């Protein structure tokens, strides 16, 4: 009888997304006995390692998660992007994401949706339900759809994001900051989990990424300063997961995922300084302020993280590389990047250089960088042209990693269609779980 009733229920799905939480880290902390709720869940469901996207940045990865598509289709290529035909940069938002999200597809099908804090959901786009935008929002006033939800959030003392400026001043205070934001996030999440009408519910925890950026040495060294506070933070996340599981009961599917892994930073590398030292990038001044200070005879320049643009004639405002010499220039830049070595150890910095056509396709392909430099673990590629040094260490101790994201499904077995799962596979999987048609132009493939 119960099974008959279940079949008649409209399938419901809850997603808890944990920004930047590595598969290997969670496994290690479970083995250490720190995360009992994760352990119970993972022992009784299906957990896999998953790949992120290139470049490995949260905005790009979560856009692929929401759309099931590669960046050439959804149009989000990094945390900053270039205004077409200029060397000016801007911060891409949901207004630039050129594809329907799973929330919008569900909305058109009449499903009720609650989505909270997923990167690249600011400004909030309409859904059949509630959407609370992400850390790209500048204040609570404009963070939510419908607009009246903003007032509710204000009343509840909701916080959009932890302030990383605090981490640069006082790490101890930053731990309190992350815990405070996590508490507010959980409070609001449980409020809407109980009060809102939903078929699909997602809460995104950003604080894990923030902690990992500034405390990743604690993940690898239990004697590191703040190691206990770091583990305690993850125990709070574990508690939260346990409460979610108990509150949603057995009839709702639960998915937990992250968007990329993490590894310790050996050095932050200013790739434009390397390109300049190699003679491939020239500036009009010894102290450039922006890419506009680039000389026309430059061959290439970089945007964070590791995105390389050839100074192509007809595309770039001062482009001098003739189209017929484009391939030659790309090969030369790729070869040079692979020779990039750490000055202190002589270790290679770039593991691979990917041509854009090998990872992107779609109507926004032309906006993609010509090459993606993929670093060896530990070398965090930056694009800042104002830096006059090749590399340095800052307050950041952790960096993103492509191949160590996690995906968990509580009640179904994960059966990858291809050898490696990638984050774009999640959208078609969720639609399938909700008995909705998967759009033919999605690049991902359902894995249940």
């Amino acid at each position, binding site marked *: 009888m119960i099974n008959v009733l279940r079949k008649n229920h409209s399938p419901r799905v809850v997603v808890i997304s944990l920004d930047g939480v590595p598969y290997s880290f969670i496994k290690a902390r479970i083995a250490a006995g720190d995360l009992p709720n994760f352990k119970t869940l993972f022992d009784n469901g299906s957990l896999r390692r998953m790949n992120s996207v290139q470049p490995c940045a949260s905005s790009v990865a979560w856009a692929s998660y929401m759309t099931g598509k590669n960046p050439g289709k959804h149009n989000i290529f990094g945390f900053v992007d270039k205004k077409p035909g200029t060397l000016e940069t801007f911060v891409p938002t949901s207004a630039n994401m050129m594809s329907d999200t799973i929330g919008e597809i569900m909305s058109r099908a009449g499903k009720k949706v609650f989505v909270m804090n997923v990167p690249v959901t600011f400004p909030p786009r309409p859904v059949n339900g509630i959407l609370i935008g992400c850390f790209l929002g500048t204040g609570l006033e404009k963070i939510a759809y419908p607009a009246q939800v903003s007032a509710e959030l204000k009343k509840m003392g909701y916080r959009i994001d932890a302030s990383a400026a605090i*981490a640069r001043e006082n790490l101890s205070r930053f731990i309190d900051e992350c815990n405070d934001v996590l508490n507010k996030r959980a409070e609001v999440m449980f409020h809407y989990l109980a009060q809102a009408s939903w078929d699909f519910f997602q809460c995104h925890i950003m604080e894990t990424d923030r902690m990992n950026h500034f405390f990743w040495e604690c993940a690898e060294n239990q004697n590191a300063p703040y190691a206990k506070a770091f583990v305690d933070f993850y125990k709070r996340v574990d508690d939260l997961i346990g409460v979610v599981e108990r509150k949603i009961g057995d009839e709702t599917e639960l998915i937990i995922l992250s968007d990329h892994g993490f590894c310790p930073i050996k050095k932050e590398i200013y790739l434009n300084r390397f390109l300049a030292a190699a003679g491939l990038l020239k500036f009009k001044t010894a102290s450039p302020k922006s890419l506009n200070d680039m000389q026309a005879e430059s061959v290439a320049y970089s945007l964070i993280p590791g995105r390389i643009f050839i100074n192509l004639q007809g595309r770039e405002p001062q482009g001098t590389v003739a189209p017929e010499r484009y391939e030659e220039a790309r090969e030369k830049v790729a070869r040079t990047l692979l020779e990039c070595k750490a000055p202190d150890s002589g270790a290679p910095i770039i593991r691979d250089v990917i041509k854009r056509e090998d990872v992107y396709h779609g109507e926004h392909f032309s906006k993609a960088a010509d090459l993606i430099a993929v670093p060896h673990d530990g070398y965090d590629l930056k694009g800042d042209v104002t830096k006059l040094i090749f590399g340095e260490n800052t307050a950041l101790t952790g960096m993103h990693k492509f191949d160590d994201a996690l995906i968990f499904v509580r009640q179904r077995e994960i059966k990858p269609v291809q050898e490696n799962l990638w984050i774009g596979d999640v959208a078609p999987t969720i639609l399938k779980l909700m008995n909705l048609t998967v759009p033919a132009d999605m690049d991902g493939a359902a894995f249940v």
Partner: protein
Amino acid sequence: MILDDLVPQLKARKCKVEIMDDAVVRVEVNQNFVLSHRDCASSQVPLVVTCRQSNSGGAFTIDTMNAAEIVCEANRETPDECAQKIMRQLEQLGCLSPFGNRIENDRRAYSEAEEVLVTQRLAELGYV
């Protein structure tokens, strides 16, 4: 011209757009509706939109005006405002789904001050 703003937005929503002459456009909004409008941004005549099934072929009459669901005051509203008003009204009338099928919005998501703030926050995270 309002059409310059409106037609790309309609096409992005997968509407079939047919420009019949310089002044009239017919749009298959969905299976049940046809939208017609006269683009008269440069005139003092109100812009009229109807999204009922119509075979008028662009022949606008006083009856068409009276039956219109959306009227834009082209002498008081900019082409962009007219286009936004039409899209919003079509959503409210149920002719278009408000969910998804976006075109890139090059209107700024931020004021200049907000963009400085967001960029600074991204820089503190090492993201710019």
